[in-house]
């Protein structure tokens, strides 16, 4: 039987319609809005983009996202991998993995609030409700307002202590995810390979770098790309813990503020486009990598 040329399109129509409605249309509208004024009435050319790249506030936000990109992605991937490989060697693996995975079951907002209590601050001499400050003061130190303190940690001024304290929370939540992913891949590697390497005289370090890692390339790139996109669009933890104040603002939070608080659709859309462009290379790389390996 010959299939008429329009038949496949008919079958794809519902999916295409939904994709168009939920993905293409909003994206296109957003793109157009980013060249318009705050009420989306008149075209203003590149004004919103010029504003974005010349405004110290948005630039600081951009730097913050870069810090997240580095610390959060590295933290999650490194810890997940290390835990997966190390726990494989201990008898209490299941319990430990369950514990580490548990934060994944908590909504990011819940995790943020829980850690807000851990970081809670009371003035010196008062009872410290926050766990971390209770520890610090019991060791004789002065309490620190962890989510507020903008003490510069890296040479770049907007990279400060409170940013790192919030990144720790996100790493705490997402490490379990990357651990499970790495662990599954590690366990699917044939043990014989590592054993024969051992017999040939390779030490554990060499086995890790020359056998384990190369064989885990696909899951590692997938997690890394997933975490990169995640770091770029992160919103919840920061919204809950500081509301974007004290120099912890992120791009996604900026979009929210420009739509909901400032009602400036033009700028919000422009930030969204910048965010999209920032994520794009990673997604393209991911798809290219999948294609190359024949996964899709």
């Amino acid at each position, binding site marked *: 039987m010959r299939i008429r040329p329009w038949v496949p399109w008919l079958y794809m129509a519902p999916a295409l319609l939904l994709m168009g409605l939920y993905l293409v249309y909003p994206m296109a509208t957003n793109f157009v809005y980013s060249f318009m004024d705050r009420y989306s009435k008149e075209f203003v050319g590149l004004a919103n983009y010029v504003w974005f790249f010349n405004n110290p506030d948005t630039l600081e936000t951009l730097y913050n996202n870069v810090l997240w990109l580095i610390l959060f992605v590295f933290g999650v991937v490194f810890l997940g991998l290390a835990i997966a490989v190390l726990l494989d060697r201990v008898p209490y693996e299941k319990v430990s993995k369950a514990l580490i995975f548990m934060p994944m079951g908590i909504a990011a907002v819940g995790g943020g609030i829980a850690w807000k209590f851990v970081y809670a601050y009371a003035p010196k001499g008062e009872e410290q409700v926050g766990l971390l400050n209770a520890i610090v003061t019991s060791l004789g130190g002065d309490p620190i307002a962890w989510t507020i303190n903008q003490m510069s940690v890296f040479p770049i001024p907007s990279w400060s202590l409170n940013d790192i304290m919030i990144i720790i929370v996100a790493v705490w939540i997402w490490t379990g995810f990357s651990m499970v992913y790495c662990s599954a891949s590690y366990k699917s590697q044939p043990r014989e390979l590592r054993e024969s390497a051992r017999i040939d005289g390779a030490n554990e370090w060499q086995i890790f770098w020359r056998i384990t890692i190369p064989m885990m390339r696909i899951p590692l790139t997938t997690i890394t790309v997933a975490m990169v996109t995640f770091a770029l669009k992160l919103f919840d933890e920061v919204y809950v813990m500081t509301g974007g104040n004290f120099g912890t603002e992120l791009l996604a939070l900026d979009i929210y503020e420009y739509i*909901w608080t400032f009602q400036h659709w033009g700028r919000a859309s422009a930030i969204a486009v910048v965010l999209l462009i920032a994520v794009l290379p990673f997604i393209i790389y991911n798809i290219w990598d999948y294609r190359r390996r024949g996964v899709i």
Partner: protein
Amino acid sequence: MQFKRFVSFGLALALMVGLAVTPIAQDTVQVLGGFNAAENYDQAVADFADAAQINYSASDVESLGSVVVQRVRAGNPPDLYVTPQPGLISNLVANDAGVPLVESGVFSQEELNNKFSEAELALGQSADGTQHALPIRSSLKSAIWYNPKMFDKFGYEIPKTWDELIALSDQIVADGMTPWCHALESGSASGWPGTDFIEDIVLHKEGPKVYDKWVNGEVNFSDPRIKEAFQMYLNVVRTEGYTFGGPTNAVSTPFGEVGNGIFPDEGEEAPNCFMFKQATFILSFVKDNNEGVKFGENIDFFDFPTINPEYSNTVMGAGVLMGMLNQSEGSTELMRYAATPEFQVDFAKTNNNVARNNNVKINEENYPNPVARQAAQSIEGGDAVFRFDGSDSMPTQVGSGSFWTAILDLVQGAELEPVLKKLDEDFEAATQ
């Protein structure tokens, strides 16, 4: 089989979309509010609506301003809105929405003039003076709270002027205690209690005319008069020993916990602090967080002290306004009812608020709650000159954005001049 599944999926989808866009009933008046205003509105209007056989549905949403604007843009506005932000009106006008109340015949100008003062009406007007909304209740912000028991115990007296306030603060510090509690944390809105403080200083120091000009952007933040107000505020918050826990504690304490400090901990002689500045609604927070709180006994407030005697009758507050987006028989009647003394008394009762209709007398019957009565006396009594919380009338980018963050930066020690300069730039950019 496949086809069937597809059809049923399609039907389900159509049903969902249908449910989402179908109005509840065609003649139902939709009232949209924020900050529980609609919930309170519901309580105050239910009897009237029953009697007049008006179907209405009142609901609250978070970030009301943007929801209303979005629904206007989507062609599906609510019929009436109840907003705490007068700034919304200009935003609606910019989106070609809003029913002018006089031109459309909902009220006559004369009627409005009988019910409200000129300043009250001005709150609901767009830039060109068209009446779009009416104030339906207010809360007092020019209040400084204290613990009368502690004041008695240490022999302190209520300061009448700013100088006395500072002298009292110095006295408390000299006595080895802390005069002020200050709390600025409020999620992404952190900093707003500080803007209130500065607004009160500007209003009491420079008077309503300069205040209005400042809110409208005709007087800059960098203007020496406004700058001085910032400095006076920062003196209170940043002077060593003045605020409990210092600036770090001020920015990290949730605003609702500000009052906990005026009650001494068990076994302690002195409280953490003696005073804090906050709106009248704070009392419910204080009562939730502390046991045995009794207004007039261990908590009370005094009016914001006089700075310039010429403007000692000024008072600052917040409140809600009601406006119309769709005119129908039902929405007209509800709008008209919202301006009556009967409604305003009921509506004010729900939250220690003050009615704005001039015909509401300040007595025990209308204000059974002593806090509300005292607040009503401050706002509506005598020759009081009322001004709305200025940051709510400024462009949102400043009033709900950089003004808040400026407070956080300044309290933590940022230099004043560059911050004020940036506020001016933001203000200019937002009005372009």
